[in-house]
């Protein structure tokens, strides 16, 4: 019986991590869908994780409230940051948000209350699997509805041609900022959930590697719709577990899959699922984000 419960425990952590990855991938999908490459979501995740864990520890804040405050804190940070960095585009925007992420990491490393390099340990495991998957469902549903709304169409228009969108009366800056701030809100929420799964967090969990990983989930899955990021996060998080017997080689497999997808499946894994719609959209040239 011990073996079975051990197995279940391992398994449930993996399932939890897949859900958290899906949330993060959805958070970065928003800005990608609007044609903006940002790499700040790992830092927002970190803000959510630290704020919610610290609130629970020092102020006995109830778990849902702590989660909420954590994600609002991430969004509150995203608002001024976004107003500054969205003057930049393309690679410059990506690098600026990356620099912000590293600054957050260094601040976490240097602040006594966040436990510096050791991070926070003994965070109570309050997150249930259904918390995570309900969040994924709600976020995916809301984003799917938003995608079809005026705002979603404005994002798509901005992605295709910013100047034309502006000339059609779309408030380009505000729409980009909205995508960024909502993304930060989701990433902060995911961070809070994940901190209460993993028992401990430290600054290196939210650095450059994580930022890139989240982006990879979204791009490998595909950005035409919300299904893509979920697929990408699911496959790329589950894969290392499935390849556990080949542990030594799993980075190699993961790299190879990444390379194959980016070269042969420019619209991501979602191509397989949603062939007809993807084809139609690709004919009007709408979907090559990556």
């Amino acid at each position, binding site marked *: 019986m011990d073996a079975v419960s051990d197995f279940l425990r391992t398994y449930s952590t993996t399932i939890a991590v897949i859900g958290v990855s899906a949330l993060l991938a959805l958070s970065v999908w928003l800005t990608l869908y609007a044609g903006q490459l940002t790499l700040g979501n790992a830092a927002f995740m970190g803000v959510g994780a630290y704020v919610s864990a610290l609130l629970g520890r020092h102020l006995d804040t109830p778990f849902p409230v702590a989660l909420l405050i954590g994600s609002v804190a991430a969004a509150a940070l995203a608002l001024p940051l976004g107003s500054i960095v969205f003057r930049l585009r393309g*690679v410059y925007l990506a*690098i600026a948000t990356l*620099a912000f992420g*590293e600054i957050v990491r260094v601040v976490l490393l240097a602040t006594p209350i966040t436990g510096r390099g050791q991070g926070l340990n003994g965070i109570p495991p309050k997150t249930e699997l259904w918390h995570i998957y309900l969040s994924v469902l709600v976020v995916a549903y809301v984003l799917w509805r938003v995608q079809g709304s005026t705002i979603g169409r404005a994002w798509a228009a901005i992605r295709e041609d910013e100047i034309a969108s502006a000339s059609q009366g779309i408030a380009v800056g505000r729409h980009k900022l909205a995508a960024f701030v909502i993304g930060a809100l989701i990433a902060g929420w995911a961070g809070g959930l994940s901190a209460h799964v993993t028992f401990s967090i430290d600054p290196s969990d939210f650095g*450059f590697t994580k930022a*890139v990983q989240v*982006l990879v989930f979204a791009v490998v899955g595909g950005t035409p719709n919300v299904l893509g990021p979920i697929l990408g996060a699911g496959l790329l998080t589950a894969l290392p577990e499935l390849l556990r017997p080949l542990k030594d080689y799993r*980075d*190699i497999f993961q*790299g190879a899959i990444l390379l194959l997808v980016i070269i042969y499946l420019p619209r991501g894994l979602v191509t397989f699922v949603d062939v007809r719609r993807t084809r139609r959209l690709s004919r009007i040239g709408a979907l090559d984000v990556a």
Partner: protein
Amino acid sequence: MAEQLYNAVFIGSIYALFALGFALVFSVLDILNLAHPTVFMLGAFIALFVIGTLGLPWFVALPIAVLVTGLFGIALDRVAFAPLRRRGAPALSSMISSLAVTLIVVRLVELRYGGDFITFPAGSVPAFVFRVGDATFEGIRLAIVVLSVVLMLILTYVLRRTQLGRDLRALAENPRAARLLGVDVDRAIAATFFVSSALGGLAGVLLAFAYNTLDSRMGVPLELRAFTVMVVGGMGSLPGAVIGAYVLGLGEVASLVYLPTELRDAFAFGLLFLVLVLRPTGLLGQKSPDRV
């Protein structure tokens, strides 16, 4: 004080060699090659292989490592970038494909050498020390500084005065027009990747020699610093990258004196962020960056 300055110039030279290769590929092909840190690491490990396994001296290992990393750069382009270029894929794609190559190569190196810090066999790395007054200076660092400056001058000469340089600049300006003008675009791209990766590999070997330590992730700290160096100097400007490298080297050594060690990284990223926000064209950038 003199020692601090000496270290700053040394660090700046390593940053410059590393960032030059990075900036060269970016300026010619608009690719952010995230596998460049991996090439850097690979250079060091090839030198280790030549010295440790083949038992050859360091002055043989150095050119072999540089040559092999240069050839690796050409292969990298063929595997990870050329297919995307043919399709006209967006910039993000090449960042991800180079990342995929990084995952694979880092793991391959770890399978052979493990993930921990290792050193060269005792006595196999050049080491001599000289004294000026009270201060001691490591000779290899001086050699690295001199070598870096010489290589930068050669690269500048090649880019400005030779046919290859003119081809590369034409390619950077407009690939289609370059092809129409009779530039052998494929050869020029291969040359870009060879030079870029050879410089990256050289930086890796030299840093590993200087510290006599290497590990599979040794390139990672340089990646984000290379962004800083390029942005400070102006994206795509090679002289700018060199200036940016020394600015960062000096700034980091100075900040180590005045700030706690945890904040060491803050200097590079703070500088990066500030320059992007206040002066995105950098010190010497001419092309207006993608600003709305």
